[in-house]
């Protein structure tokens, strides 16, 4: 097996047994990144990576290593990294060298991981196709004419294209799960508040949540062990101990009750995607799980709810980007207003401007009740639907995305793009954990199965996903050209 097809768990064994060094491993990935056509990275931090790899090898030689010491990864360019450009995929932050580390960056450094570079993404995490990056489209490793999904498209393409054994991602409305599904990898969005948001450039603060993107559920558990935890620097961080997420991976799932929301299998879902998802559910039944139909009656309203709540929060969050303290400033401003107007208009891309304007309008006097408040109420109803469903079932399953990856450049109308987020948005609105795991292929492209769990059920989700991956080999498939 090529070294780059190994999982984190396998690489860790290889490093600790002296089969290969972190320097060799890191160089191998850097070579692959430099000859890749996927545009998965905005910045490749080769010098830093080699330095971190040497220090990791030192630790391993001295017997002071932890399980992740010397494992390389791709870091979504939304996480601040001290002394390294952190662009969030935007021209606005093209010149932003972060003066501090995000908590997630800090934790990964503490765990002695090796950062290969900063992964490409939709500008400020706004997008479902990675076509909104200032640094160009990311290509799907399974077919370079297709989108990789978004907003963590660079992260997903890097893992699927075997340019990194894992990547960090963030998920505000599906941005970990949807690209994971479209690129055929494993992605976990934990419960809101599980991983610190400190230094993770804010899009919609009540929805944003970071998570791991990996080949396997076992790897996701290993990485989540490091990423998770309370952080006093994040005002909405959960004061809750971190479990060992690997501890229950091997538990039996006999007797598991799976809920299938009928709303997730209605009009708009591609037939082949539906049959792959149902085949995966059948597999679970053969493993001793039972299936029950559930209803999430308000889930259809997740799209309008999200596309009011998220833009409102984004219009507020992005108001700080004004060309004064950091980031892009226009040339020769004639006065302060001109400075604000031109810096923001020249610095932000189209989709970001659209969402800022929607938010500014929905929050303005006279419209606040009709839009923002109404959406916050609907959000409550959406979360109540889940509460009801979880009285009867242990986990909810369904598709991640209504279709497989579509052609780059083929969806031009913003509302059509938003509709593709139908199955992922509700988990963010409710704050619930969700996963995408590889579950087959349709039209020669990967199909993901979505798992949605109750609050703080990350261990359970990882257990369910791991048991599935012990029975199936979808997660081991590698795109042609990336073997």
């Amino acid at each position, binding site marked *: 097996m090529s070294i780059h097809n190994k999982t984190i768990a396998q690489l860790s064994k290889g490093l600790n047994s002296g089969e290969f060094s972190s320097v060799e491993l890191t160089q191998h990935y850097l070579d692959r990144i430099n000859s890749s056509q996927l545009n998965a990275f905005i910045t490749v931090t080769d010098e830093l990576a080699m330095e971190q790899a040497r220090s990791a090898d030192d630790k391993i030689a001295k017997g002071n290593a932890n399980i992740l010491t010397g494992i390389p990864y791709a870091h979504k360019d939304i996480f601040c990294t001290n002394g390294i450009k952190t662009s969030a995929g935007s021209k606005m932050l093209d010149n932003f060298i972060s003066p501090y580390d995000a908590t997630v960056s800090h934790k990964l450094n503490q765990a002695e991981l090796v950062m290969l570079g900063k992964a490409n993404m939709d500008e400020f995490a706004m997008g479902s196709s990675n076509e909104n990056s200032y640094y160009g489209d990311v290509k799907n490793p399974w077919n370079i004419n297709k989108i990789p999904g978004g907003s963590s498209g660079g992260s997903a393409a890097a893992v699927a294209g075997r340019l990194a054994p894992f990547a960090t991602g963030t998920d505000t409305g599906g941005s970990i799960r949807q690209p994971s599904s479209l690129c055929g990898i494993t992605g976990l969005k934990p419960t809101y508040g599980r991983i610190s948001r400190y230094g993770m450039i804010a899009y919609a603060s009540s929805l944003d949540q970071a998570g791991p993107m990996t080949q396997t559920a076992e790897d996701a558990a290993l990485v989540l062990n490091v990423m998770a935890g309370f952080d006093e620097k994040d005002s909405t961080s959960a004061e809750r101990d971190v479990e060992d997420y690997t501890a229950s991976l091997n538990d039996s799932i006999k007797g598991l009750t799976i809920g299938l929301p009928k709303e997730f299998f209605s009009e708009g879902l591609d037939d082949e995607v539906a049959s792959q998802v149902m085949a995966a559910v059948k597999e679970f039944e053969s493993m001793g799980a039972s299936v029950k139909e559930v209803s999430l009656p308000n889930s259809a*309203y997740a799209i*309008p709810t999200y596309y009011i709540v998220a833009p409102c929060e984004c219009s507020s969050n992005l108001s700080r980007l004004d060309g*004064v303290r950091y980031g892009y400033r226009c040339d020769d401003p004639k006065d302060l207003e*001109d400075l604000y107007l031109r810096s923001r208009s020249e610095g932000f891309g189209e989709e970001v401007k659209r969402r800022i*304007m929607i938010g500014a309008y*929905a929050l303005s006097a006279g419209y606040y009740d009709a839009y923002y408040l109404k959406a916050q*109420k609907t959000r*409550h109803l959406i979360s109540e639907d889940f509460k009801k469903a979880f009285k009867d079932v242990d986990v909810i399953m369904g598709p991640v995305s209504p279709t497989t990856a579509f052609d780059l450049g083929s969806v031009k109308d913003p509302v059509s793009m938003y509709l593709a987020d139908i199955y992922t948005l509700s988990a963010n*609105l409710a704050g619930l954990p969700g996963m995408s795991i590889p579950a087959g292929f349709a039209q020669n492209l990967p199909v993901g199965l979505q798992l949605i769990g109750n609050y703080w059920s990350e261990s359970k989700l990882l257990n369910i996903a791991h048991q599935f991956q012990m029975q199936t080999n979808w997660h081991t498939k590698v795109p042609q050209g990336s073997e």
Partner: protein
Amino acid sequence: MSLSEEQVGQIAYLARLSLSDEELQSNTKDLNSILSLAEQLAEIKTDDITPMAHPLHMTQRLREDKVTEKDQSESFQAIAPKTGKRHYLVPTVIE
């Protein structure tokens, strides 16, 4: 209800964005289609529903009021477009 180009121009200005004539036209079309999507929300009865501002219904933590961060103005200002005498500089506001 739909927004006119004039209203979209006003919204853009509120958000400190300026749009070219062409952008104004395309944004008016896009914003109107997004708002008509949002109008689906009117179908739902929400009279007695409390708005949900936070997924975990948490209350904000309090902490002791003491200084925890050291002065980092130098490193923060090193990345600013224009500074002078420890201030951020912008075009003259008052002559």
